[in-house]
């Protein structure tokens, strides 16, 4: 595993889309490569930030009740 290979698979590693073997290869590379590991940590942090920023909007209770009345 070299840096370009790692960069190529970083999105899939971040999103848990690699096989166990592939993920282990990336993990080993990250442990020995500060540059790639910094980028991974940054991307992982940004992914968490996007999730936490965008997932706080729940459907309003009145809308949920209205839908339940219409649908059931």
């Amino acid at each position, binding site marked *: 595993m070299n840096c370009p290979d790692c960069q190529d698979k970083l*999105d*899939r590693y971040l*999103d848990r*889309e690699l096989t166990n073997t592939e993920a282990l290869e990336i993990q080993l590379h990250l442990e020995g490569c500060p540059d790639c590991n*910094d*980028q991974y*940590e*940054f*991307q992982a*942090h*940004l*992914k968490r*930030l*996007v*999730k*936490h*920023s*965008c*997932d*706080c*909007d*729940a*459907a*309003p209770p009145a*809308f*949920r009740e*209205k*839908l*339940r009345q*219409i*649908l*059931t």
Partner: protein
Amino acid sequence: MADTSPARTAFAEEALTHLDTLYRGALRLTRDPDLAQDLVQEAYLRALRYQHSYQAGTNMKAWLFAIMRNLFWDRFKGARKDDVSLDDVGDFVLYEKLRDDGAKPEADVLDRIAASEVVTAVEKLPPLHREVVLLVDVEGFSYKDAAQALGVPIGTVMSRLHRARQQLQRSLYDYAVESGIVRGSAQSAPQQ
């Protein structure tokens, strides 16, 4: 009059467990709470009408999201003429600028960016890219489920996601410079 059979009621109740995901998706796509509610309500009515086409045991959330986003495209985007595709700009602006400035650890800067600015950056993405971020990053869909919900190959999910993340970094970098969180370089971030 509405069918109130136990089977329909059970289906509706199960479908309603995914309401928050659909509402959030609709809100981010329409950027308007009233339009989002209209869209979600219509999506649920359509889902019940086509209940027979749902295969039990498959991902109901992905199926419902597909109905909602198809309605969004039909109602708000017509023939999708006004959507744009992002180019692969080959870089992650925010990370690379911070690295070049010697900021360590680079991720600390993210803690200084307000959630509302992140939402704004997501909402500025073209809809085709925004919906991938919503599914994978916000709702935790696998690439396979996102592909099913969007009706595209997995490779398309991956490329749109990658470009959306590049664009998000570009927007957040611009915000970070404007708000003084980071120093802007003499040469501004390249524009597409």
